[in-house]
């Protein structure tokens, strides 16, 4: 007896963007009525794989079959006609159209040159919303006026209402408060014979609903196994590419005595309240927190991007008022921002020009920019961030995430920063570049610099910081000294528990990586 034909088979899929390899030689199969988890860190290639399967992005190489038939969708409608439906992570609803019209895109008026009959469409939409247990959503409401969580529900309903053979759910719980609703719908879809590819980085969800999981790392499949047979540690180490404890530089603390490099009192701004902190020279001070607890506001306020309502900032003992990142930079305080692509780099410029920007005003002769001086300044700085010289003339967009981040760090350092504000600097960065960034942080501290370091990866905080502040609901909820640093301790504070024991039971298994 031959084995049953898999619902989806993917063989040797590859995709690259410029110099960045998004997917390489990925193969797996999905059986009828199965939920398969797809795991990986940010930048591991999960979303690219979803786009390839949905027909949004054409792969460079490889083949796919659905139910035994060759599958090479040219667009999302091809994918739909083959029975593939996707709930996208970035949500694909048009904000200016109503819920009803969105549900029936691209042809709300039916085939041919018909007219949209709004009342009938809304009745039909109300029926669909009822069937999927979200009758509280008004079908005539404009999507742009609904909260993110409601939009995510609509996105999921829109994928499921087509009764697909293959359902792709890309981070479907990122804005969802009621996960049980989704899990119930998934099990209903499975009963109807749908296969589900469930993309998430939340391990408890994967354990809850998936039979099997595939782990991607740097665009390659590194694990494909039954979920029950794996321990959390095994899954995490395959996602991260190393075991959890090793691979951090071991160094003694370089904290120097007073005066502190940065001292903040009573700082209050939009999204952050009454923060006190002191950052000594040579210190790496961690900041931890679940998503949206005010960490982003704290960093922005310190970098001059948010006006202070109260409080003061002192740099090396001098009172400073930062009206803009420019005044902060002048005082030696430099932010490496959260969203590298949007806030960190100038997309159309070369890597060299990106790095030299803060000092370009000094690289002149007779008021004209002297390219040799510029190049010399940049060449001084790039060994510190371990960026290879050959990348300098390339457009920065052609670089991998890791090399882009090194360039951003070089840009932060080139004007002589004394205090770095690093906001999740290793997000979407490959393992090698992470190591470079860790070494750079260590060296910067040893030379007397001060670092305020937020990370969504708790193990980074545990292993790199001298102390760690934990933010919860826009306030500092507590501080963990170096000797007591552990993921459990941080998580307990970050989720609002003061008792570490209880928190360990409830949260450690669930969220060894803090939600992004």
């Amino acid at each position, binding site marked *: 007896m031959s084995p049953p034909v898999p619902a989806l088979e993917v063989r040797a899929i590859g995709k690259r963007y410029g110099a960045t390899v998004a997917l390489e030689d990925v193969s797996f199969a999905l059986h009828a009525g199965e939920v398969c988890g797809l795991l990986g860190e940010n930048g591991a290639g999960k979303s690219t794989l979803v786009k390839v399967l*949905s027909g*949004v992005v054409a792969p460079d190489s490889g083949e796919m079959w659905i139910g035994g038939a060759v599958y090479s969708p040219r*667009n*999302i*409608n091809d994918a*739909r006609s083959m029975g593939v439906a*996707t709930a*996208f992570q*970035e*949500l*694909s*609803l*048009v*904000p*200016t*159209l109503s819920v009803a*019209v*969105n549900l029936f*895109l*691209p*042809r*709300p*008026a*039916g085939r041919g*040159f*018909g*007219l*949209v009959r709004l009342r009938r469409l809304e009745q039909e939409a109300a029926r669909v919303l009822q069937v999927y247990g979200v009758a509280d959503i*008004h079908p*005539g*409401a*404009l999507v742009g*006026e609904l909260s993110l969580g409601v939009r995510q529900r609509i996105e999921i309903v829109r994928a499921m209402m087509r009764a697909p053979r293959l359902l792709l759910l890309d981070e479907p719980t990122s804005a969802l408060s009621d996960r049980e609703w989704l899990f119930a719908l998934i099990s209903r879809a499975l009963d109807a014979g749908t296969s589900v590819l469930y993309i998430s980085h939340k391990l408890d969800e994967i354990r809850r609903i998936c039979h099997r999981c595939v782990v991607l790392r740097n665009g390659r499949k590194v694990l494909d196994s039954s979920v029950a047979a794996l321990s959390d540690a095994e899954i995490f180490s395959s996602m991260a590419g190393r075991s959890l404890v090793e691979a951090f530089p071991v160094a003694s603390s370089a904290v120097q005595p007073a005066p502190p490099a940065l001292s903040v009192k009573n700082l209050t701004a939009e999204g952050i309240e009454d923060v006190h902190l002191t950052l000594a020279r040579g210190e790496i001070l961690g900041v931890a927190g679940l998503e949206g607890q005010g960490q982003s506001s704290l960093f922005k306020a310190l970098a001059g991007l948010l006006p202070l309502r109260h409080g003061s900032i002192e740099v090396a003992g001098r009172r400073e008022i930062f009206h803009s990142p420019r005044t902060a930079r002048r005082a030696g305080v430099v932010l490496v921002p959260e969203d590298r692509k949007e806030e960190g780099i100038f997309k159309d410029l070369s890597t060299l020009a990106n790095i030299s920007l803060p000092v370009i005003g000094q690289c002149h002769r007779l008021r004209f920019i002297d390219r040799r001086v510029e190049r010399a300044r940049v060449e001084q700085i790039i060994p510190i961030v371990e960026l290879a010289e050959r990348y300098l003339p390339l457009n920065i967009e052609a670089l991998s995430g890791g090399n882009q981040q090194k360039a951003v760090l070089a840009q932060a350092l080139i004007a002589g920063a004394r205090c770095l504000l690093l906001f999740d600097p290793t997000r979407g960065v490959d393992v090698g570049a992470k190591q470079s960034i860790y070494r750079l942080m260590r060296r910067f501290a040893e030379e007397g610099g001060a670092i305020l370091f937020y990370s969504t990866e708790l193990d980074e905080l545990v292993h790199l910081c001298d102390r760690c502040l934990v933010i919860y609901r826009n306030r500092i909820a507590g501080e963990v000294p170096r000797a007591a640093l552990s993921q459990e301790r941080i998580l307990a504070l970050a989720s609002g528990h003061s008792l570490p024991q209880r928190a360990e039971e409830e949260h450690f298994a669930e969220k060894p990586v803090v939600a992004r």
Partner: protein
Amino acid sequence: MKITVKIRRALAGGGAPFATVVCLLMYAIYAVRAPSALSIFGITNVLNDAIVLAIGSVGLTVVVLAGEFDLSGVGVIAIANVLVATTSGATGLGAVGSLALVLAIGLLVGTINGVLVALFHLQSLAATIGTMIACEGVALLILPAPGGEVADNIATGLTGDVAGVMPVALLILGGFAAAWFLFKRTSLGVAIYATGADAQAARLSGINLRRTRLVAFMLAGLCYAFAGYMLSAETGTGDPRVSSALLLFMYAAVAIGGTSLSGGKGGVFGSLAGAGILTVLQKMLFALGVAEFYTNIFNGIVMICALLFGNLASLLVGSVRRQVAK
């Protein structure tokens, strides 16, 4: 809930009703000073003055809703004008033949624009500057100096009235309004709005962006051509340079009508009212005895006020929404 949804929609679509009210108000002021404005002759006159701008901005609105720019309109209008002036005469193609020729040219230019933008991914602003200049060049080639002659049946037939009660121009504008009323309820109409509002989401929703953009430019080209045909009927002659001033006024009409220049919001009714405002304003100021060289100052102020009102409306929508959320 239902009522607030309705309020929000009325405010969100604030451009067209607001512009219509302003237009009628100005017309009332104009009529007080010049009572002939209320006669069928007076109304026909105003509509004839507005119709070229109105139809041109209808075409532009379709492209703007799809999230693109289109400057080629004046070029197409110029070609259409000189073609009608050279071909519609007794020895030429006649009224219907020259209309068909002109529409074909409009469709061709629209298709070129659409292909450049949708298929070759050129920036629409830059690409249509190119086609605009080329079209104006072609118009000069066809008719190097003002002249030519527009067939009598075009000039009189399209500018008069039917049986002394219904201006022809009103019938034509009503036809465009009705066509839009139906078109925006087709899947393609919805696709144009969706593409302009959020192209990425529209694509992930299965909308064919290329086809949508291409069709938007083609429809616009047809409108421009018809606007050029109407211009010929108004002036009765051909002039390759007569339309240059129209370009910015077309954009002004679209903006006054409440259509967002970044796409996805607004509609043709607003643009019709916008064209009406720009035309009636001139009449009103003249009737009030304001010297003609002040007119543009007021045009500009009206446009800025319309944009401010658009902001105000969205602020109001926001506050209603917050109340609903509570």
